[in-house]
């Protein structure tokens, strides 16, 4: 408790480097999240650049996943969860009344920690999103969407002969790539990834990391990770969270080589976390 209050009093400016190289895609200003009476986020300011990978790192329970889930309003489904502050997508407030949350989640897709394919066929997994959003007219177009999504997720060659088999029968890494294919099938602008590799072995992880690097060309990606090497490898910008605050944000290289805050330094050098 004492640590927490001390942290709060010594809250740093945490201002970002003046201009990110890429255009601004999503922007969070003074975001506070409460679960009941417990405050999980204490005023986060963070901007997400277009076609960039932004990594959120920090010890467990520091609020990175909570923040990630604010970006596509997945927190709406949690009882007693209250979000304050402003989050914009292309300058538009995502918590505005006029925003349709279903449409928002189609634009801001999500990949979860544990691979969670639907217990349906591989084809149905990928085609589900386009089907409910009416993105493909007719079978041929749907086949094309499915193929393209699986190709982009780097899974096509492995599954093209067994599209009718259940998605749950794939290996863990394949399942996670299937989930990524499912997310990109609805042509989102932003993809949120919540520790996408934490349940995977190193080879599958390397596969996903390559994939993230390729996806960067077309999509804006925000990734939460516990693996600092991963953050260093895949991201262009990194934000360090600690106890519900964002301590520091900057270019990944700079955060890892020359952190300004000693808590950041302590974390990335493995002194705590």
């Amino acid at each position, binding site marked *: 408790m004492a640590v927490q209050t001390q942290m709060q009093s010594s809250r740093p400016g945490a201002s970002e480097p003046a201009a990110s190289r890429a255009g601004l895609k999503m922007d969070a200003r003074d975001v506070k999240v409460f679960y009941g009476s417990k405050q999980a986020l204490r005023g986060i300011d963070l901007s997400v650049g277009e076609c960039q990978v932004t990594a959120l790192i920090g010890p467990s329970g520091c609020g990175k996943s909570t923040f990630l889930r604010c970006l596509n309003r*997945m927190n709406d489904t949690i009882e007693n969860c209250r979000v304050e502050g402003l989050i914009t997508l292309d300058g538009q407030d995502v918590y505005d009344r006029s925003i349709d949350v279903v449409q928002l*989640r189609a634009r801001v897709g999500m990949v979860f920690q544990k691979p969670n394919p*639907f*217990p349906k066929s591989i084809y149905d997994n990928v085609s589900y999103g386009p089907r409910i959003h009416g993105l493909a007219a007719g079978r041929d177009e749907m086949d094309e969407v499915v193929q393209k999504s699986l190709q982009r997720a780097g899974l096509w060659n492995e599954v093209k002969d067994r599209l009718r088999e259940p998605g749950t029968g794939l290996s863990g890494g394949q399942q996670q790539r299937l989930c990524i294919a499912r997310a990109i099938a609805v042509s989102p602008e932003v993809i949120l990834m919540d520790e996408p590799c934490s349940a995977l072995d190193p080879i599958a992880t390397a596969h996903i990391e390559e994939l993230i690097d390729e996806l960067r060309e077309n999509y804006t990606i925000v990734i939460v990770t516990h693996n600092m090497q991963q953050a260093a490898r895949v991201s262009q910008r990194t934000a360090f969270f600690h106890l519900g605050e964002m301590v520091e944000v900057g270019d990944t290289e700079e955060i890892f080589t020359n952190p300004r805050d000693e808590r950041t330094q302590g974390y990335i050098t493995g002194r705590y976390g």
Partner: protein
Amino acid sequence: MTDFAANDRPMPVYQSDAFARRLRRRYAAERRFRLYGIAAIGVALGMLAILLGSIVSKGYTAFWQHDVVLEINFDPQEIDPAGTRDPAVLGGANYQALAREALRERFPEVDSRSDRRALNDLLSVGAAYELRSMVLENPDLIGTRQAVRLPLSDDADQLLKGNIRREVGQTERRVDDRQIGWIDALEADGAVVSGFNWRLMANGDSREPELAGIYAAAIGSALTLMITLAMAVPIGVSAAVYLEEFAPKNRWTDLIEVNINNLAAVPSIVFGLLGLAVFLNLFGLPRSAPVVGGIVLALMSLPTIIITTRAALKAVPPSIREAALGIGASRLQVVGHHVLPLAMPGVLTGTIIAMAQALGETAPLLMIGMVAFIVDIPGGFTDAATVLPVTIFMWADSPERAFVERTSAAIMVLLAFLIAMNALAIILRKKFERRW
């Protein structure tokens, strides 16, 4: 405190006698516990075996019945003196006289009034009905002589099955010595035949045990269950989906949940009283009708369906919901496309268990008049009807010896239905079960 670094002395604790004793005690306790479990299962299975054994041993004889083959003279003078072949005339003829005539022909020596009555008592009153329907179906029989298979009375049947003991004094049994003599004579002649008791399966209820059947009750049960199913499943599943997936978690929903759980424990007769007060007295629905019985049983099975459906919905992993929400499915789509289909095996199991419970329910139906003695086979949801368990209840109440075995037989039929329904539940669950 202790110096663990010192390795010059052996580990004292794990090799001591005290430790060995503790270990032995632990093994003994485990063995005892396992024995208790086996004993408990043994007792439970034993009880079940006694129950089933007593029902089957009492009831299996009801599945066959003794008939007598008599040479019937379809006398035109008796049936249709004017020769009109008018169904009204044919239906009104005295067929009992024909049957009795045929029996008397076999025993010409019987002439005193009381002897003749005793002889007539060997034949079931159903013999007349069966002759009548034969003639109505085929009027060409009139004027011919035919060997016809007719039901014996329940007492004669019981004697032939050995359920009436011959060695007791004749005042203490339902069949006197004269009748035993005639039955033995008929049997010696080969006129007594026994076969599967179709009347038990195809007839409605009757005061005469040899004619009583469960068909009308089975139809009544089917009609009642149809109403129950049609009402309870949509309402129960919708309520469960709303409470589990959409409703906010607050004091009101907590209150509703507590009340649903309490309703599941309310004695079923209370639902019957509610049905009597509301559906019969207030809404004026017909008495003894499957529609009212179905509604009452639906009310009774709603809590079961809601509770099992909620449990099934809860068992669907939240990751599936998140996955669907994450690609922009609305909450209704999440439930309709993913959660409910995955919960379906559980929902089906709950539904079938609730239906099996409803099928075996008696008390609430007594309150709404389904306990009435109803002979006719119900033709619709508003006809007077009764159900299988109520028939069992009424037969168990009847004094005739023959109803004892019929009660057990009806219980066996009801159990067969219940086993079939539970088997269906298991098959459906296995079929739709998915892994994730």
